[in-house]
């Protein structure tokens, strides 16, 4: 890839900043990651396919990527609202809520897993009344729409099943969306909204035509980061997932499993597949963002 500058800019420091960025990136990320690739390349094709495409591994990809996507989507929506409320409105306890947003970063993932399990397990604070509701809901759904195995999809309980995975992944992804949106909202120029209002736009039009396009790149970034983080998450999920093979077993757990059996190559092979998948998805999202910025700027 060529990092040639496309057009001359008057601003200085391109060479220095890009040079430093690339050097630091290579030393800390690219060279170490290439160690994983090289280790995985020692395998024959058959070996590789067996490691990365056995039924259990495939089932874990579906779960990991599917639930991560769902969790990131929920985070993008609700996290967007949280960020908006935090920046624009004042209400009692606003600062406390603001501080709370960082919790998923500060709390070690294992502690988060334990705490979430304690809350959502059948005997937990919330689980004791939410869990029966969930089970009832799933049962009713199975009666109403019998062609789908709802229990397999939605789980037979909240903790120690698929909903638990979703809760953990939503928890760890939330700050990404809020904290990416917040600075952009803070810097958002009120003049834009004022101009829109002066020109006769109503609140809804200002929202969708003026504010949302400004926020969109940051929202996409937040979504992408929350998704990427969720895909790799291990510590909090294993406590609450139940970890049943073919059902609620996540891919990072399978990597650990391989490592426990001294199968470095198998582990790195799965890691490489996840890396390539995440990289592709992130790249797509970044391209989309670039496109959206150009589109909205016109």
């Amino acid at each position: 890839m060529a990092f040639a500058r496309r057009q001359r800019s008057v601003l200085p420091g391109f060479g220095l900043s890009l040079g430093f960025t690339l050097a630091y990136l290579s030393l800390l990320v690219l060279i170490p990651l290439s160690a994983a690739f090289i280790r995985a390349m020692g395998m024959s094709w058959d070996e590789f396919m067996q490691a990365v495409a056995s039924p259990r591994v495939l089932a874990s990809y579906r779960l990991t990527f599917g639930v991560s996507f769902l969790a990131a989507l929920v985070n993008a929506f609700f996290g967007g609202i949280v960020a908006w409320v935090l920046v624009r409105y004042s209400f009692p306890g606003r600062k406390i809520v603001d501080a709370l947003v960082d919790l998923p970063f500060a709390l070690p993932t294992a502690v988060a897993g334990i705490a979430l399990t304690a809350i959502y397990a059948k005997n937990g604070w919330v689980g004791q009344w939410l869990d029966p509701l969930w089970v009832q809901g799933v049962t009713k759904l199975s009666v109403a729409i019998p062609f789908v195995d709802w229990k397999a999809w939605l789980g037979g309980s909240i903790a120690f099943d698929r909903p638990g995975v979703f809760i953990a992944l939503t928890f760890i992804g939330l700050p990404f969306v809020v904290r990416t949106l917040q600075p952009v909202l803070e810097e958002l120029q009120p003049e834009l909204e004022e101009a829109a209002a002066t020109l006769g736009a109503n609140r809804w039009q200002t929202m969708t035509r003026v504010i949302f396009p400004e926020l969109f790149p940051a929202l996409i970034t937040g979504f992408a980061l929350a998704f990427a983080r969720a895909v790799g998450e291990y510590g909090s999920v294993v406590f609450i997932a139940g970890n049943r093979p073919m059902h609620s077993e996540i891919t990072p757990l399978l990597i650990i499993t391989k490592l426990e059996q001294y199968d470095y190559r198998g582990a790195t092979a799965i890691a490489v597949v996840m890396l390539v998948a995440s990289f592709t998805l992130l790249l797509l999202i970044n391209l989309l963002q670039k496109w959206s910025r150009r589109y909205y700027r016109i």
Partner: protein
Amino acid sequence: MAAIVSTLGERPSATRASQGRVIRNPLWVRIVFTTIALIFVSSFLLLPLAAVFVEAFRKGISVYFASFADPDALSAIKLTLTAAAIAVPANVIFGVAASWCIAKFEFRGKSILITLIDLPFAVSPVISGLIYVLLFGLQGWLGQYINAEQPWFPALQAWLIEQDFKIIFAVPGIVLATMFVTFPFVARELIPVMQAQGSDEEYAALTLGANGWQTFWYVTLPNIKWGLFYGVILCNARAMGEFGAVSVVSGHIRGETNTMPLHIEILYNEYNFVAAFAVSSLLALLALVTLVLKSFIEWRHSRA
């Protein structure tokens, strides 16, 4: 215009506090939005936090504070602070450099560069630790070199053996893993802010005769300070809370290579739930420190 301090008022943007706002959302919109936000935050954030503190104080305040007197806990706290003190500044410098070249210039391969910066987010923490083991472990590249019969540079090999410099299962490995995991935070916060900002103000400064560094210090930095602030906070929080990657390279030697999260795991596994949650509550309090810092900066800013 005076600030609105009703129960559900609309607050002036932090950066443009002096300017009034002509547009307000109707009250019902504000109530609905705030309620949704509060319910979401309560069920996903407030409850886990409450769980941590309830467990930590289950046996009273004295037991809570006794948890920190343990020398192993103190050494874990010290190690965690050390790792963060190295990882965060390094990533701040990187973040500023990366966002400068990405936001202010157009070049080919930019999307790929951004994606590469995002990559550590997507790497499973377990793998983040493992790659350093593959590099520096006894069975890894470094180990193979040290044990090689006929190395490339015998002098270097002899020097390495003599130094007996430990990377993994020692502090350098823990610092490296922490840096890797928190690598994208500052850059990722700054890029959208700088992009939203554009370069007009910098052009103006340059036209008025400022040099590059002056432009950066007096024009760019004040504009990106919130993004930078969030970036540092997040980077620091994550650096202190990281579990998976550090767990792989730590070796779990009590009182030596255990960070706070690893020490918490140990305490929990010893059925010492109160101490485990007490140490966790310290990490949770980080968020509170953030709040104080942020209020302080806002206050300074409003006076300036």
